[in-house]
């Protein structure tokens, strides 16, 4: 009799008001306490890597910018850096600064978006609307520079597609001044609100050890005191020339992650101001003839963490292999460490606190007719090793 009593499962997903995308968290609950969590994603697998292999090198940036509507500057940049490394291209100085500005504008609007959504997830819709209103001028700036509010497609192999015109810089700096004031107000409101403290502090703690164990990246890691940031650790674009700080908070709870994101907005504003000041004159792109055979990786610090692209060329005009690893792919499994033992309202905000982006993270699982996953960890490892050996043989 006792075995027939199933543990109650609370389904967050596949369609749930918590998040816009398709995701499925099975929360095994004991009253209000979550005792286990099963994360199931891949409701929207689009086969980006496979499509990428059918496109030419210069078409791929527009494809990968559509991996995620929000990281649409980071993904193409990582890809382009990989290709530039294969071909040994050095983009002009001005292009590096333009890339920096676009990427930091993207970080600002992504972090503001998260702050708003986090407010919505804990039922604070006023914060939701206000943060999104503050975010709007940033999107307008991006539209004015690149032509699009999202999916800018501004980076191409050898440089940039659109320049940051010198006329726009004054307006941009003015908008950033206004944004800094508003963000300051918002940050103070978050840091001083006792109800928000009660609601967010000590919730969903991801300890330093767990953060290292699950290899989380981005604000998720920095909120647990792990000071990693690709912009500083392996500088790309113009970050090495600029003066800014890596924000970390030691607590590892949702509040710390919120503080990290809010303070990073100020750092981004600082970076853009310096970049606008130092912006050198000159062309924004060099001509690219052909991509030789070879392989390379490119990585950038997307708003959610490290975006990693691996590209292999055989000397033709298409990549023969293109591998993408978005930050959510490593951040999502950390729910196992941060959610179990928490209460349901804490778990939902913890799920949102890593700012998961499922469309970046979708992977394929092969199942047989009994709904059993065919490839487990061992067979996948074996397949991967076989493939690597085969590829190495081809490369020689």
């Amino acid at each position: 009799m006792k075995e027939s009593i199933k543990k109650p499962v609370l389904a967050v997903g596949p369609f749930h008001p918590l998040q816009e995308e398709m995701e499925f968290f099975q929360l095994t609950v004991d009253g209000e306490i979550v005792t286990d969590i099963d994360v199931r994603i891949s409701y929207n697998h689009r086969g980006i890597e496979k499509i990428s292999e059918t496109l030419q090198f210069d078409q791929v940036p527009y494809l990968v910018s559509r991996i995620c509507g929000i990281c649409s500057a980071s993904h193409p940049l990582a890809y382009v850096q990989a290709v530039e490394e294969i071909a040994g291209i050095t983009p002009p100085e001005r292009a590096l600064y333009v890339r920096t500005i676009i990427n930091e504008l993207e970080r600002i609007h992504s972090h503001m978006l998260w702050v708003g959504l986090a407010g919505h997830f804990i039922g604070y819709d006023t914060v939701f609307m206000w943060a999104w209103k503050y975010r709007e001028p940033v999107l307008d700036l991006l539209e004015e520079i690149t032509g699009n509010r999202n999916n800018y497609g501004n980076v191409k192999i050898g440089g940039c597609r659109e320049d940051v015109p010198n006329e726009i810089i004054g307006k941009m700096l003015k908008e950033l001044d206004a944004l800094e004031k508003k963000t300051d107000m918002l940050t103070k409101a978050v840091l001083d609100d006792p109800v928000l403290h009660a609601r967010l502090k000590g919730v969903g703690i991801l300890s330093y050890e767990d953060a290292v164990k699950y290899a989380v990246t981005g604000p998720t890691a920095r909120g647990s005191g792990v000071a990693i940031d690709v912009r500083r650790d392996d500088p790309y674009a113009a970050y090495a020339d600029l003066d800014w700080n890596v924000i970390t908070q030691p607590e590892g709870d949702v509040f710390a992650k919120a503080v990290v994101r809010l303070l990073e907005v100020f750092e981004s504003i600082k970076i853009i101001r310096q970049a606008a000041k130092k912006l050198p004159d000159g062309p924004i792109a060099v001509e690219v003839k052909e991509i030789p055979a070879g392989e390379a990786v490119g990585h950038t610090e997307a708003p959610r963490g490290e975006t990693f692209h691996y590209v292999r060329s055989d000397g033709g005009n298409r990549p023969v292999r293109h591998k993408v690893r978005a930050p959510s792919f490593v951040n999502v499994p950390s729910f196992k460490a941060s959610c179990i033992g928490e209460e349901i309202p804490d778990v939902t905000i913890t799920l949102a606190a890593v700012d998961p982006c499922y469309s970046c993270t979708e992977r394929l699982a092969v199942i047989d007719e009994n709904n059993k996953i065919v490839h487990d960890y061992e067979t996948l490892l074996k397949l991967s090793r076989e493939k690597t050996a085969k590829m190495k043989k081809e490369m020689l």
Partner: protein
Amino acid sequence: MTEPLQILFWVVVFPGFLFTLILGLVASWIVRKVSALVQWRVGPPLLQPFYDVIKLMGKEILIPQEAQRTIFTMAPVVSVAGTLLLSMMLWRVSLAGTSFVGDIIVAIYLMVLPSLALILGGSASASPHATVGTSREMKLVMGYELPLLLALIVVIIKSGGQLSLVAIAQNAPVLSISGMLAFLASLMCVQAKLGFVPFDMAEAETELGSGILMEYSGALLAVWKVAQAMMLVALPLFLVTVFLGGFTSSLWAGIGKYVLVLVLIILIKNTNPRVQIHQAMKFFWVHCGIALVVAVILATIGNNYGIGWL
């Protein structure tokens, strides 16, 4: 008109069901519009709540296979009936000035009825989300009933031991320290009864879907919406009658007081995140409880020594 017909008119049209319903839907429009203005949005047109209810009325009703059909379908009706009775009583007090001894106690009972119906309906719907919502609603009811009773005891002491709403509405206890404490505490209780942020954890859209109402659809959901709209009239009206002197001075002053209470509720709704259920219980039992015990003591001292402002 003969007397039974007159009573029927009172119950069904004015100031009963239809009048309260229309006023309630307008009040829920005010809630949405003011929230929108606070949040820099445009907000819905005046008739939007009416459209919502009418549209829901025409939608298919789905009842889960494992649900207790009778309780599941009856719960929203019970909720509407309880709210209707409560608002009838309050309108009679406010507009006609008729009342009976002890109707404040009846009002207390009637105010619990919608919450109980919600708990019954949620637990009859055989959904894990609704189950969690139900358990939260039960804890919430246990949380706010104690401070609400204490607050009403303060009012009864201030009015010199009167138990009828008309007699209580003659004075405005909010103009004293104990009355103010009691008013603020009952405002929070009304917030919880209405299921508004920060006490909307039973519905908790971003955690439980819509939690306790998750399995309701079509006309049954419309009936819940109707009950909620009518509560939006009845509960602030109760606060106005008990704490703010009701409609005794003039009709317009009464309407002004009602709108004031409604706007206070909306502002609380829009400047807070949703709290957890144990935080809500702690708030009601410890913080409100202690404040109200102090208020009861102050009111007793004030009453015995004739100090009005205590």
